[in-house]
């Protein structure tokens, strides 16, 4: 790591000296040699995870600022600051310090708003990043474990958001905690004790804000930081996945080096994310607790929504009919709370976490996958993901049913009933429609590969026949549409051997085959070279030399599928993305 110019400048000598000092003590040269020019592929959707990371750093920076002024205490005090409507109001020190932070600390309100907006963006980025991973199959071997790490980060993000949301001790978040108390109490047998465990006695008690504070500034961020480290370690270890395209294979990674391209792009992107969040904090008011007032168990306002990532739980609670609460042998089992607040999210999250393993079982392949799937080429997965999302968004909308009612002048009862029905029908429709769309897109790809682009050029033959000339795809365009494997359902050994003896393990195999059929029964195979040749060979009787020859397709002309050479090459950027 030394500079070898004949007359080194002062700076160069200083740099060399520092590098030598560090390397002798850390051997950092090896790390620099390995990682400085490491290649990462480029795609806009790879930025989603970066947004999550950078908004988290923004949260850490603004959060440290906030802890300097926030007082996590439920002791009662009387407000006596500049905000007129709260003059003389009794409130907790937590709420009073939030007001002080907002109105008296210079830049405090900006930091509060940046912190809150960044938290919302953090969760949104995690969810969309996860969608990207899901729909492109980036979770396949060897990345299943990293999917689980990412999933855990999602759950921790929810915990971080919820614990932070409640800290100002305002009436809105207080009612959120009250709902939490109601949900926790619903747990059979230990519910009441769990409530005491959380609140240190009865709701709201004296302990909750300090406890939430520790959870919010120490426990959860510590875990998130550790898991982000693990998450990124895996990314480096596995090397990043890449979208299919010419020159990209399962055994290479094509892109740009970390230094200097990604140092500049990713480093710059951090400032852009932070800058956009600062812009939001400057111009868009969020959680104006000074309008809500301090927590009091009595008042509540309509149209009170939690932060967006908790809305699905709220919607789930709103949809469940009350009749589900039952009493067995004198013990109350409030299924009207247990089902929507525990079982429904439990099912959604379990499906999400377990999906890579279920798909691996159905696919039965043990290869490493580094080339991403185009969503259309995996119709079952894409349809399944969309149906999960639809269920999630129906619950989110149901969590806003009162706002829908007041904005559109509809009956809240009708809306609730509509969502109750939709929650069961919506995902099925979404699954069916998405799968059809995927298969349709795959057929379109086949059609395009076999018959080329329509050119709009109509040619009349001497015989009087009119044909439209088609332009065949060039090799790069074609590769994108034919590179994938068409996975077939698993084949299993027959139930009985040649002597008619029933085979052990047949039932398990049969279940696995059924699963596999569910995934891969409906499929469209990619075009093979033989099929393409066959498509080009018919209609030889037409005599039209295409203007300019191109590859093996020279002179391939057919009735209705007449080719010309590609005259304007599609730009590779557009073609492969």
């Amino acid at each position, binding site marked *: 790591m030394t500079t070898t110019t004949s007359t080194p400048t002062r700076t160069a000598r200083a740099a060399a000296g520092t590098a030598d000092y560090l390397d002798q003590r850390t051997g950092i040269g090896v790390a620099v040699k390995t990682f400085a*020019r*490491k*290649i990462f592929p480029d795609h806009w959707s790879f930025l989603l995870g970066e947004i999550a990371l950078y908004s988290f750093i923004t949260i850490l920076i603004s959060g440290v600022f906030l802890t300097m002024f926030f007082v996590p205490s439920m002791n009662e005090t009387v407000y006596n600051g*500049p905000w007129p409507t709260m003059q003389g109001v009794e409130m907790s020190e937590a709420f009073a310090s939030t007001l002080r932070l*907002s109105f008296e600390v*210079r830049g405090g*309100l*900006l930091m509060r*708003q*940046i912190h809150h907006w960044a938290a919302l963006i953090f969760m949104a980025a995690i969810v969309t990043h996860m969608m990207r991973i899901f729909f492109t199959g980036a979770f396949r071997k060897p990345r299943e474990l990293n999917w689980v790490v990412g999933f855990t980060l999602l759950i921790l993000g929810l915990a971080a958001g919820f614990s932070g949301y409640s800290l100002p001790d305002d009436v809105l978040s207080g*009612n959120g905690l*009250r*709902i939490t108390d*109601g*949900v926790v*109490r*619903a747990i059979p047998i*230990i519910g009441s004790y769990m409530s*005491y465990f959380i609140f240190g*006695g*009865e*709701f*709201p008690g004296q302990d909750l804000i300090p406890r939430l504070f520790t959870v919010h500034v120490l426990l959860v961020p510590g875990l998130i930081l550790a898991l982000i480290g693990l998450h990124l370690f895996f990314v480096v270890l596995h090397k990043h996945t890449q979208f299919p395209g010419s*020159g990209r*294979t399962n*055994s*290479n990674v094509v*892109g*740009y080096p970390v230094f200097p*391209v990604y140092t*500049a792009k990713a*480093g*710059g992107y951090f400032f*852009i994310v932070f*800058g*956009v969040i600062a*812009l939001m904090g400057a*111009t868009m008011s969020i959680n104006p607790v000074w309008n809500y007032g301090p927590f*009091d168990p*009595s008042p509540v306002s*309509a149209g009170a929504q939690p932060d967006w990532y908790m809305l699905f739980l*709220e919607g789930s*609670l709103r949809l*469940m009919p*009350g009749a*589900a*609460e039952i009493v067995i042998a004198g*013990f*109350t089992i*409030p299924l*009207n*709370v247990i089902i929507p607040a525990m079982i429904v999210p439990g099912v959604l999250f379990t499906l999400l976490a377990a999906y890579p393993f279920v798909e691996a079982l159905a696919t039965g392949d043990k290869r*490493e996958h580094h080339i991403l799937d185009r969503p259309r080429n995996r119709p079952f997965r894409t349809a399944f993901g969309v149906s999960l999302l639809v269920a999630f968004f129906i619950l989110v909308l149901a969590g806003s049913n009162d706002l829908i009612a007041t904005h559109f002048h509809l009956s809240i009862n009708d809306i*609730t009933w509509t969502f109750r029905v939709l929650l069961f029908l919506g995902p099925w429709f979404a699954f069916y429609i998405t799968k059809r769309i995927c298969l349709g897109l795959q057929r379109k790809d086949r059609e395009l590969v076999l018959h080329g682009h329509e050119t709009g050029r109509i040619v009349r033959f001497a015989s009087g026949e009119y044909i439209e000339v088609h332009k065949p795809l060039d090799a*790069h365009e*074609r590769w994108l549409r034919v590179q994938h494997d068409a996975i077939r359902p698993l084949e299993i050994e027959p139930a009985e051997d040649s002597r008619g003896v029933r085979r052990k393990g047949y039932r398990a195999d049969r279940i696995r085959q059924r699963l596999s059929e569910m995934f891969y029964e409906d499929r469209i195979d990619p*075009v*093979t*070279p033989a099929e393409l040749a066959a498509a080009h060979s018919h209609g030889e009787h037409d005599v039209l030399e295409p203007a300019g020859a191109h590859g093996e397709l020279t002179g391939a002309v057919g009735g209705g599928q007449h080719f010309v050479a590609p005259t304007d090459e599609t730009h*590779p950027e557009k073609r492969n993305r």
Partner: protein
Amino acid sequence: MSNHDNGHEATTDVALRDTTGPDRFENPGHPEHHPRLGDTDPKANKKAERQVVFLFTISILGTLAFIVAYFAFPPGETPETMRRSNITLGLSMAFALLGIGTAAVHWAKSLMNDHEKSEDRHALRSDDATRETAVAVLKEGAEDSAIGRRGVLKVSMIGALALFPLSIVLPLIGNIGEDWDVSKFKRTMWRKGLKLTTDPDGRPIKASDVTIGSVFHVIPEGLHEEPHPLDEKAKSVVLLVRLAPEDLKEAPNRKGWSYNGIVAYSKICTHVGCPVALYEQQTHHLLCPCHQSTFDVADGAKVVFGPAKRPLPQLPITVDDEGYLVAQSDFHEPIGPSFWERLK
């Protein structure tokens, strides 16, 4: 066939053929590199450089503007000054950050080498020799410790490690739930003769002041003198309504719980505990704004819609000698959300 830049020894173009059978197309290899305008035209290159410099300058100006805004616009005493402080600080900060961000990205995209490079991947699995050595090393270690042969030692070690966390968990569990007396869920501070007073100022309510159709948000007398007023308030808030006698349906065993058409119900929803605060006079319906459980006040606060199952508990009331509304007793059932031992 590659136009790729192999500027570094670690990055090489690799064989581009996938493991494809004869039925598969072959990967056509890296597409041709298209130079940017700035790669061929020195003027465009210089222009891009000037743009990057301009963006960095914007950032510097943004930071300077932030410092000026910090001193020039204190949050002050009025909403307008607070808003001005926030927006000037925020906008200048956004410029400071976005300037750096866009400059760096523009630099990377327009001026840095844009030749894609290719790097090999290697299977993650260790080779067989490494695996065998790893297993051998572990075996050797296990033999050195002799843990396989010393069963009692193993059991005692596991026992010690498994039991030790109790010394942290026990005091934590012991203290974290205060006194763990969950029967407090079943009692509130209401008792015979306690006056109903208005929330939040605590004025007693005369029965004669309650007109038909009016609603009072009620707290028990002396709430603020309790050791933990919020804990008590969270259980004892009540909603008081006077209905026209012909509208009021009363169960036979509750005939004596109202006074002159005035009924009092717990304000804590039986679903998950939000305050049921929205009263609609025409229909006598009480709506919980959190999850829209709807209760019919004229008919024992029974649930007419939504996720709650049970009616709101009724507080038996009467008047004292001076005509003030008072409670006859505590609620006859636990208020608020359901829990396992609620009826025990």
